[in-house]
């Protein structure tokens, strides 16, 4: 059995290097690096990011490069099909759809981002107070959230839009007035988890120092679901805005959003389908992009969740 090339010196005791042992034990590259590595493999999610970046850029330069603006009527040139002059054609008032589409992008993305941010802020405050204090405070706060959660979201938004004066900010406020609940629940759950002794103990036994532990293991682990929820709030807000526009409760003219543009185009769908096509296409594309990013993030941040 002896291997011929072995020398007697091979049988001297090995210096066990503690650090070495530690390294072998648990190759733990950082959580975010790991997540990013997994995310990068998700082609669909990368596509989503590229799309959002492109949409973001176009929302700023789209209008200027078309040589038109979003509000100039030109009734003589109403309902023109796409051409060299009007790349996406014109609407029933002769406004350039290309310029309006990118202006709409700005409005729709702004609504989405603002709604998500406001949800995040309220959700974090509410959820972390409930989660941090626990007990009775938590119970009552979450009971309130539960009751609000039980009422259909869109119904509430519609009722609010009926009584509030129309406007961009009213829209955002109406959307966030119950929209934050979901975020609050997630945040609370995460804060609870952070607090849970067991969880902290589990990482401590790996022998990490406390602050490093907090920032390297705990905070990232709790950030994951929050980020995912945040990402998925954006398409939801864009959807809600478009939905309200269809009911005539969207942003008031002369502001243009994809929702109001589609809704306006609906009347003449039979004759000028392109007027609906462009805004509708971009609504779908944006929702798709955010959805795949959100999914990609969920899969990347939570490796336990399926392969």
């Amino acid at each position, binding site marked *: 059995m002896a*291997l011929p090339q*072995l020398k007697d010196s091979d049988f*001297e005791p*090995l210096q*066990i290097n503690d650090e070495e042992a530690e390294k072998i034990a648990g190759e733990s590259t950082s959580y975010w690096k790991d997540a990013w590595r997994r995310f990068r493999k998700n082609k669909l999610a990368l596509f989503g990011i590229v799309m959002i970046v492109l949409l973001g850029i176009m929302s700023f330069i789209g209008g200027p490069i078309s040589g038109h603006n979003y509000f100039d009527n030109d009734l003589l040139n109403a309902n023109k099909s796409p051409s060299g002059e009007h790349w996406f054609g014109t609407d029933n008032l002769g406004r350039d759809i290309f310029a309006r589409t990118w202006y709409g992008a700005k409005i729709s993305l702004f609504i989405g981002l603002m709604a998500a941010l406001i949800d995040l802020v309220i959700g974090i405050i509410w959820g972390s107070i409930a989660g941090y204090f626990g007990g009775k405070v938590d119970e009552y706060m979450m009971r309130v959230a539960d009751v609000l959660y039980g009422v259909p979201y869109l119904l509430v938004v519609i009722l609010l839009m009926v009584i509030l004066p129309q406007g961009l900010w009213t829209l955002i406020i109406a959307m966030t007035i119950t929209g934050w609940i979901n975020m609050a629940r997630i945040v609370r759950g995460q804060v609870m988890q952070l607090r849970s002794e067991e969880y902290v103990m589990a990482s401590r036994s790996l022998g990490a120092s406390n602050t490093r532990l907090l920032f390297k293991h705990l905070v990232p682990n709790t950030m994951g679901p929050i980020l995912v929820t945040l990402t998925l709030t954006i398409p939801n807000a864009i959807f809600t805005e478009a939905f309200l526009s269809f009911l005539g409760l969207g942003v008031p003219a002369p502001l243009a959003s994809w929702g109001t543009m589609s809704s306006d185009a609906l009347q003449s769908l039979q004759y000028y389908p392109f007027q609906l096509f462009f805004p509708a296409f971009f609504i779908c594309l944006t929702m798709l992009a955010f959805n795949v990013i959100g999914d990609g993030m969920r899969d990347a941040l939570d490796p336990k969740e399926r392969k």
Partner: protein
Amino acid sequence: MSKLLEVKDLSIAFDTYGGEVQAVRGVTFDLDEKETLAIVGESGSGKSVTAQSLMRLVPMPPGKFAGGSIVFNEEDLVEKSDKQMEGIRGKDISMIFQDPMTSLNPTMPIGKQISEGLIKHQNMSKKAAHNRGIELLKLVGIPNPERRIDQYPHEYSGGMRQRAMIAIALACNPKILIADEPTTALDVTIQAQILDLMRDVQEETGTAIILITHDLGVVANAANRVAVMYGGKIVETGNVNEIFYNPKHPYTWGLLSSMPKIDGDDEELLAIPGSPPDLADPPKGCPFAARCPYAMKVCENHMPEYTHLSETQQTACWLLDERAPDVEAPESAMVGGTKVHE
């Protein structure tokens, strides 16, 4: 006499995001009729994967056979089709899982879960299978089986569920019963009852048992032979007496030291420092080298081969090489007051 089951050089790997995990790396053992073989080792050493592969229950993909054979009834199970395996599972080989809370279907009455196998393998009628189910529940010591048989798992306690699980596994009188940590999830008194039950059942039906555990106390009470696994390999095998009274592998020493002694004060529970090797990038040499207090330079780069210490005992450790320094098992690994069955 030919063996009931012969596993040779079995290797199983998983494709994961982090690369290929070599969960089982060339495992060889065999099983005689009516005996109980214990496989011990700490978490992640590949015990469950080994056990499940015997029934071809390792999910493939991500898992795959990376070599070796499992010979049962003179046939290699690795080569069998899924369809052929269905005829063996539950009939010739059956299995009990670690957690009785999750291993029973929560939306199906216990009785139905028992009779399924009977209907499939023994062509029983529903009625006959139901009656046999009642007998089996009685056999595993469930009081009031006529009433209990129509209940759902959540109406059973943990111990009773594990009994029901055993009833399911025994339904078709299998030749081999694999029990993957059957008592780990139960509290101590129930543990003893379940082990007693398994021993009784074995006496009655003559099944061979493969008992997987990381608790050497369980081994002492229940097994004839022991295989110690570490890092996807079997590092030492022997019969119970050899493993408890004449262990030769430092990892076995470590396991014995970490076992509570009947006479000793329980303060002296020596855990093995460090953690098991990363099987996605397994060490070239002895898997235990990073934690072994006796490790030598050779251990890092060369896998020790088995030294046959007796008819039954084999150990893979460089300490058994004549060039190695003489090392005695530490005091703490001496079994002392522990009662060894048989």
